[in-house]
């Protein structure tokens, strides 16, 4: 993979930047420039705005991978999941720091920042989101905000969980 090909996606892979249709309110990840949900797609053109996912979600389905994708050899077996975020979009990602037995459909997870792969010993290292279970977090009583606040937005402790 060329350096630029990964680099240009870092706002999405590092910070879960998606998009939202201001016409119908549907959120997307990765961002889309046309809204598939709007009956007349044309209505959504130029009405898609950047939208920050919180990284909170739950497992919609999962698998324990024994024959890995390229670059994931050292992590076998690893848990891969479809994670339905609280904002709606579903993301594909690993669930790390969880024993495979502990993962189930419905498990609450949160985005974390990990290495995705290295381009050999001398190449660049790619980073991005994975997920960890939230259940064993202490101080579970407190409301939680997004792991990465939108640049223009100071996180509010008073925000109710979405």
């Amino acid at each position, binding site marked *: 993979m060329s350096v630029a090909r990964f680099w240009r996606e870092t706002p999405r892979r590092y910070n879960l930047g998606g998009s939202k249709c201001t016409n119908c309110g549907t959120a997307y990840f990765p961002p889309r420039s046309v809204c598939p949900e709007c009956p007349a797609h044309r209505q959504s053109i130029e009405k898609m705005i950047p939208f920050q996912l919180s990284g909170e979600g739950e497992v919609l389905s999962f698998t324990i991978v024994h024959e890995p994708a390229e670059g994931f050899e*050292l992590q076998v077996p690893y848990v891969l999941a479809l994670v339905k975020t609280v904002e709606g979009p579903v993301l594909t990602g690993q669930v790390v720091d969880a024993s495979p037995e502990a993962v189930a459909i419905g498990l609450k997870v949160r985005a974390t920042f990990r290495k995705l792969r290295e381009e050999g010993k001398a190449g660049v*290292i790619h*980073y991005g989101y994975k997920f960890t279970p939230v259940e064993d977090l*202490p101080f579970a009583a407190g409301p939680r905000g997004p792991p*990465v606040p939108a640049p223009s937005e100071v*996180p509010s402790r008073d925000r109710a969980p979405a």
Partner: protein
Amino acid sequence: MKAGIVSYGVYVPRYRITPGEIGRVWGSDGESMGEGLNVRRKSVPAPDEDTITISTEALRTALLRGAIDPQQIGAVYVGSESHPYAVKPTATVVAQAVGATPFLTAADFEFACKAGTAAIQTCLGLVGSEMIRYGVAIGTDTSQGAPGDALEYSASAGGAAFVMGSERVICQVARTLSYTTDTPDFWRREGQKYPSHGGRFTGEPAYFRHVTECARRMMEVQGTGPKDYAHVVFHQPNGKFPQRVGKQLGFSEAQMRYGLVTPDIGNTYSAAALIGLANVLDRAKPRERILMVGYGSGAGSDAFDLETTDEIAAYDRSFGRPVQWYLDSGTEIPYAVYAKFRGKIHMGGS
């Protein structure tokens, strides 16, 4: 000094290995080695973790706890001796990953185990001179000892991020000063995978001399004595050195208690003293005075005379995990898995 700690966050990887397990592989009595070092287990990073991911997790926690707008961060400095790249900063990735880019300065620091405290000093200068609003200092490492070497029993992984600023300060910095000499007790040459060290030379002329001289000078300048501090935190390459140095300086077990985290997670190098400080801050009430003395081989010590403010009572720690959680939790792995995770197994192919 007007500048101080505004927020902080810690991250320690989940996996643990015991000295007994390491010794089993090398035919040594690992358990007594662990007892001698006062290290019960050490943290091990997963294959997808490095000082960039650890720094990012720690800083994200700090930003959430302090409700800090990442765009107000003017500097990110990451102190480590295990940066993933020899050339290309850890700090730029971390800054991007927390949304602090692009208008800020960023750099990586290296000073063996005290690169993190050096980063704090730099941030204090920038904040104090009003060049920036918030400065981020991170100490982090995924340190490695050569297989079978004494270092292997303690070298671990973790990170702590401190946001320095002058508003809503939870812990003031009354003074910081350093003690620096050319002392070759521990080093790693360019291109070498594992560090080398001077064996017993790392003790008296290196760690003990620098830490005690620096601590004494601080107390002398500040007109304080050991009894003025509620807590003391030292660099902790193992669980024994800080206990001994504390005793030499006249501190009690109770003062050292929360600042000592190495026995449960190992020596996190650049993060070691900082995670100890975070553990103290996790529990501290307003107006508690803290002495922290870092140490980095090569060699130098940075001392900090700190005091918590009334702000700490309102400080929201409900994001991320407290240090105690990392001390208590973890998943133990056998040496073979550790060797795989740490890249000690020669893999085929390109």
